[in-house]
């Protein structure tokens, strides 16, 4: 009885102490960005923005959240946000990834969308840190003129802001824009601005208040292939007898300036440097090594203009659609291939099996507007779950295939706005009792045995009319 009271006091004291960090959590707007460097890469249809932010804590309490703001139009086009913190000095610099998640701030103006980055360790007063952010935006380059003829070059608009939009106070900032070629039709001047070769430099600007925005438009030439897969359905069928069968249905389109006028094949083939500079006719798909039975066909039939090269580390399938793709033109085709199951199916330590496969589109440098991956698990699989490194929509379906009685469970993963940076592995876990593999030969054996029983029954039954 005597020992209970001090123990209770100790528990009370401990619970009070643990409340202190919660009381001391400060507003993250105490963080001030001392130097911001924004590098925008416009060389392909996918716009990559690299932000290097030097952050200092000017408040009185430790802060652990850095906020990023985006205008509502840009948030819809945002495919990926990645943040990393540099640790260590010059030669031994390592990047530690940081968690980024969408957040809300009550006093943000005009539907600005916010993302918050959680720093590794909370920054104490007047402590600094360097955070590197990568943003990937799709469908950001607007072709202008919207329609071009075969012999014209493609020019695009890029809308952004010379001042980086941020809820924090930025002491000094510079924006560097890299254009695909030296030909820049026009760009908005926000002094001091400089244009040299393929770089347009906005800045340095000093002492800008939070949420300041200065819209700019850069009109430049961009003849890189604007290959967009509007819809991609990938079906991965797992067979425990040794093979993974993948079928991919593509709806490919050229998302650049629309082609107007006549397509002259003679002009296209005789002057390739002037005619059809923004069109593309080859696509490269990177497949895993040891791929077999590759086919490339569409609704008309097999397309023979393809090449498959492979070594022990990767296979490359180079496909050429039936016609070159100009602005606004579409092509639909199916690519299928088989892979050995032991490269992708593993047993986890808790006894479940899992498929380790790569998400994303195997065709390089393309944007996928709508990606669906269906993983067909063998009959008799239970408790399927999928684990992916980024948020995806999942649901289950049933598919009836060869020698199926109850149907196969299909795990369907859907994602919109997929870029090549999303090509990382995802896992699908399920439980499977190996004895179920015998179900298929037993089914065939039963069918043959029923035939034999039928024969025996016929030969034993006496169907004669007279004795």
């Amino acid at each position, binding site marked *: 009885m005597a020992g209970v009271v001090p123990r209770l006091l100790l528990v009370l004291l401990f619970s009070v102490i643990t409340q202190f960090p919660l009381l001391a959590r400060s507003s993250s707007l105490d963080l001030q960005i001392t130097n911001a460097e924004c590098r925008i890469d416009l060389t392909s249809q996918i716009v990559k923005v690299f932000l290097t932010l030097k952050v200092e804590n000017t408040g009185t309490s430790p802060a652990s959240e850095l906020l990023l703001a985006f205008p509502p139009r840009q948030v819809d086009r945002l495919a990926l946000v990645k943040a990393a913190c540099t640790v260590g000095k010059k030669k031994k610099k390592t990047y530690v990834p940081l968690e980024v998640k969408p957040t809300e701030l009550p006093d943000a103006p005009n539907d600005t969308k916010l993302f918050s980055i959680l720093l590794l360790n909370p920054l104490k007063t007047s402590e600094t840190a360097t955070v590197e952010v990568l943003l990937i935006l799709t469908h950001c380059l607007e072709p202008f003129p919207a329609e071009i003829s075969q012999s014209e070059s493609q020019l695009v608009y890029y809308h952004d802001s010379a001042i980086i939009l941020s809820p924090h106070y930025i002491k000094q900032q510079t924006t560097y824009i890299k254009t695909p070629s030296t030909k820049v039709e026009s760009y908005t001047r926000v002094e001091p601005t400089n244009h040299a070769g393929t770089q347009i430099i906005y800045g340095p600007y000093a002492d800008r208040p939070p949420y300041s925005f200065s819209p700019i438009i850069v009109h430049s030439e961009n003849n890189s292939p604007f290959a967009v897969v509007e819809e991609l359905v990938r079906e991965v*069928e797992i067979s425990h*007898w040794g093979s993974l069968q993948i079928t991919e249905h593509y709806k490919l389109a050229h998302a650049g300036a629309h082609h107007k006028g006549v397509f002259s094949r003679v002009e296209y083939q005789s002057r390739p440097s002037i005619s059809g500079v923004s069109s593309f006719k080859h696509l490269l798909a990177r497949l895993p090594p040891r791929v077999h039975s590759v086919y490339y066909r569409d609704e008309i039939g097999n397309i023979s203009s393809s090449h498959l090269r492979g070594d022990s580390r990767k296979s490359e399938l180079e496909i050429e659609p039936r016609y070159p793709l100009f602005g606004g033109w579409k092509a639909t085709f199916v690519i299928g291939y088989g892979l050995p199951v032991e490269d992708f199916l593993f*047993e986890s*330590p808790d006894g479940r099996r899992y498929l380790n496969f790569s998400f994303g589109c195997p065709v390089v440098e393309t944007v996928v507007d709508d990606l669906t991956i269906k993983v067909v698990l063998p009959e008799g699989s239970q408790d399927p779950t999928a684990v992916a490194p980024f948020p995806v929509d999942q649901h289950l379906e049933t598919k009836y295939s060869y020698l199926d009685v109850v149907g196969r469970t299909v795990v369907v993963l859907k994602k919109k706005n997929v870029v090549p940076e999303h090509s990382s592995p995802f896992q699908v876990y399920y439980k499977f009792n*190996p004895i179920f593999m015998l179900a298929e*030969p037993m089914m065939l054996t039963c069918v043959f045995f029923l035939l*034999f029983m039928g*024969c*025996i029954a016929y*030969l034993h039954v006496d169907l004669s009319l007279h004795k």
Partner: protein
Amino acid sequence: MAPEAKPIASPIPVAWYPTLSVFALAIGLVLTASFFIYEATTSRKSRSLTKELITGAVASVFLGFGSLFLLLASGVYV
């Protein structure tokens, strides 16, 4: 991915599928032939039901596995 992940492969090496299918189907068809020869050569009274059933069962097992390996060897991974 767990470092001790064990890859799962087919219980029977894939390279054996064509050979196994040929042998299993051959034995199964020989047994089917022997079943029908037995039916054709013996008279109704002297037939033994046990012998018929056993020959039929063993023949159907071999034919079942043989046709499974035939499907796998021809690329229909069931």
